[in-house]
C-alpha cells in the first residue's frame, strides 16, 4: 500500500496538530461537563462525547509516529 512520504517537519506538524485537536476537544468537553446543570443535567449537551473523543484521538499519535514515513528515516 502506498503511504506518502513527508519531511520530518511535516510529520511533527501532523502530530502536533493531532495533539492540539485532541487536547482542545477533551478540554472543551470537560469544561462543558463541569458547567452542566448538576441537578437537572441540562445544557452543554454532547460534552461527554467531546471529552471521550478527545482522549481517544490522542492515541492516534503512536499510530502516526509509526505509520507516517519521514524522509530522515529513508
Amino acid at each position, binding site marked *: 500500500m502506498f503511504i506518502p512520504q513527508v519531511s520530518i517537519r511535516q510529520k511533527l506538524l501532523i502530530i502536533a496538530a493531532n495533539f492540539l485537536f485532541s487536547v482542545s476537544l477533551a478540554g472543551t468537553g470537560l469544561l462543558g461537563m463541569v458547567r452542566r446543570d448538576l441537578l437537572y443535567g441540562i445544557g452543554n449537551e*454532547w460534552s461527554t462525547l467531546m471529552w471521550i473523543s478527545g482522549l481517544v484521538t490522542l492515541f492516534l499519535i503512536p499510530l502516526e509516529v509509526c505509520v507516517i514515513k519521514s524522509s530522515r528515516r529513508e
Partner: protein
Amino acid sequence: MAIIRRHLDKVTQDLLRPILTTGKAFNFIAALSLVMFSLYVYAFYLQFFHGHGFTTRQSTPVGAVWGLYAAIIVFFIGISHVGIGVSAAARLLNLEYLRPLTRIAELLTLFCLPAAVLMITLDIGRPEKFVLNVMRYGRITAPFCWSATVISVYLFASTIYLYLSMRRDFAVAADWVPKWGRLYRLLALGYTDTKEERELHERTLWWLALVLIPIMVSVHSVYGFVFGLHGGRPGWFNPFMAPFFVLGAIINGFATLIIVVAIIRKVFQWERYLSIQTIRNLGRFLCWMTLLYIYFTIAEYVTYSYTPPAGEAYVVQTVLVGEFSPIFWPAMAALIIGFLMLLFNQTVFNHQFTLWITVAGATLINVVLFATRYLIVIPSLLRPLLPFPSGVYTPTLYEWGAFLGAIGFVIGAYLVFFKIFPAIELPLIGEVEVKGS
C-alpha cells in the same frame, strides 16, 4: 520498498498453520459459539420488546435489578484487565519469556471488554438509549460516565497497541498466506521490516505500554467506585473497594490467561512456543495474588462483622449465616483449595510440576471470583432502604443465557482472529533457533 522475501522456516510455518488449515474441531467450536451468542441475542430481543423486568423477573418492591448482569460485567472487566497488563509488563520489564503469549493476552482485553459492554447494554434496561444518553447527558459526577471514558480509551489504546505489535507480522505473512495476502498488505500500511522500522515500533510500543498501565488500573478502579461511592447502600460504601476490585481483576485475568494459554497450547500443539515454564511463572504469580486476596477477604469480613451499623449487619448476616452462606462458604473453601493446588504445585512438588493442577487451580479460582462478584452485588441490593420486606432474587435462565452468549462471543472472536491472523508473534530471521529451542 517491498519486504524481502525470505525462506519460510519451520517455526513460521508452524505458527501460520491455523490460518492455512481448518479442522473439523474448528467448525464444531465455531458453530457452538454461534449458538451460545444467539442466546445473548435472544435475551436482548426479549428485554428490548418486553422490558427489563421480563428477563430479570423482577416483581417484588425490593430486588436486585442489577442482578447477575452486574456480576458478569465486573467479571469480564476483570479478565480484560490483565491482557494488556501482561503484554505491557513483558515489554517494560523486558520479560522475554512472556513474549510468546503477549498476543493471546492482548486479545483477552480486546474481546472481554466488548463482552462486558454487551452486558452493560442489557443491564441498562433501555439498551437502545444506552450510548446516546451517556454521550449526550453524561455527568462528570457519575461513575458510570467515568466508566464510559476509561473503557473507550482503554479499548482504543489497546487496539492501537495490538495493531502496532502486529504490523510486522502482516508484512511477513502477506507472502505466505495467499488468501489473506491483500488484507495483510493493506493492514501493513507499507511496512517493510527494516531495522529502523522495527526499532521505531519497539520504542513507540514501550511508551504506549507505559501509558496503558495506569489506564488499565483506572478501568477496574472505576468499577470499584461504581459500588464504593454508594453512600446509602450497605456493604458497598467502602474506600477499600477500588483496590479490592483491582486485585480481584488481576487474579481473574491471570487465572483466565492460564486456562486460555493451556487450551491453545494443547489444541495447536504449540508446546515448543508456549513453554511449561511460562505457564508455571503465571501460576506462581497467581498463587501469591490469591493469598493476598484471601487476606483482603478476611480483613473485609472481620471489619463488617465487628459492631457493624444495621445495614451492614443485615448484609453480613445474609452472607455468613443466611441465604447466601451456601454460596459464600463453598466459595471460600474452593478459593483456599485453588490456592493450595497452585502452592503445592510450585513448592512441595517443585520437581514434578504438573500442568493440569495449575489449570484446575486457576479454573477453581475463576469460578470463586465469579461467585464473589455475585456476593458483592446481590446481598446489598436485597436490603430494603424503605420500610418494605426484604427482597428475593434468583437469576433467571435468560440472564444465564446472556452470560453464555457473552462467553460465546469471546470464544467466537478468538476463533475468527486465529483463522485470519497469526496468534503468536512471528520470529525474526535470526530468532528462529532460539524460539524453537
